[in-house]
């Protein structure tokens, strides 16, 4: 008897690796808060979103194990995020150029 789940070799991430990512996330939170105190004018939203995206990527890849999943998982996530990005960016065709 063979079960299908044997194809997937479980990947164990060490506590150390997780702690490292966690420290990275805390550092990025610190950077976000510090940058918010500086007057960046029109770059405020861009920097905030960039840092938030990096943090999400760290959570997705390591905490959510996306890094160790089959390629189809990554493609799916990419499609979902791209769809959302299109929703939001295309909406601004209606608002940004009035």
């Amino acid at each position, binding site marked *: *008897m063979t*079960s299908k789940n044997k194809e997937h070799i479980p990947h*164990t991430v060490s506590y150390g690796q997780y702690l490292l990512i966690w420290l990275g*996330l805390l550092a990025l939170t610190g950077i976000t808060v510090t940058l918010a105190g500086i007057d960046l004018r029109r770059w405020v939203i861009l920097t905030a979103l960039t840092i*938030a995206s990096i943090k*999400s990527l760290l*959570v997705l890849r390591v905490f959510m194990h996306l890094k160790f999943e089959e390629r189809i998982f990554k493609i799916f996530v990419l499609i*979902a995020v791209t769809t959302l990005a299109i929703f939001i960016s295309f*909406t601004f065709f209606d*608002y940004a150029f009035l």
Partner: protein
Amino acid sequence: MTTITTVQEHRDDTGSRMGMLLFLFTELILFGGMFLVYAVYRFKFPDEFRLGAHELNDFIGAVNTIILLTSSLTVAMSITAIQQGKKFLSVTFLGMTQLMAVAFLVNKYFEWSHKFSSGLFPQSPILLQKPHGEILYFGLYYVMTGLHAIHVIIGMVILGVMMIFIMRNSINQNSYVRLESGGLYWHLVDIIWIFLFPLFYLIH
């Protein structure tokens, strides 16, 4: 006639995780719709959004961010623990996550009740006198952080059930995909907060 009973376990862990991921996409679109509304109104009322954000306490927001990031860490660690067969450690990590979730909600409670006492709640006379953009800001603030808080509560229930499963050995070293899926939900709640925090608190 003899009946032969064979115990055959049908499991597809990858498929289970994929199913969870597909569900999380619907959550992404749910919150994504709200972020879209946020984006348009912030674009139309940048100054009012800034005024609204001044009413929020950056410090509590930052503390809650750290709490949620750490709670995600302990969920991830609980999976490593169960993979190594350390049942007690796994439950302990999940227990830590639960405590941090409670701390997050307690902070949220104080935050909201402080806003309520200064008359900043939907349809309050004080808020209605403010400019249109600020009313929209607080409307979005309550709906989005409120829906997020509901997700934190749901996540606590899910992880609580996982703790019971581990204690009953239903989740164990050889079968832990349910814990992984529960973890995925918790991390998504974390990611949503990662965006909510700078977008609502850090506008100066």
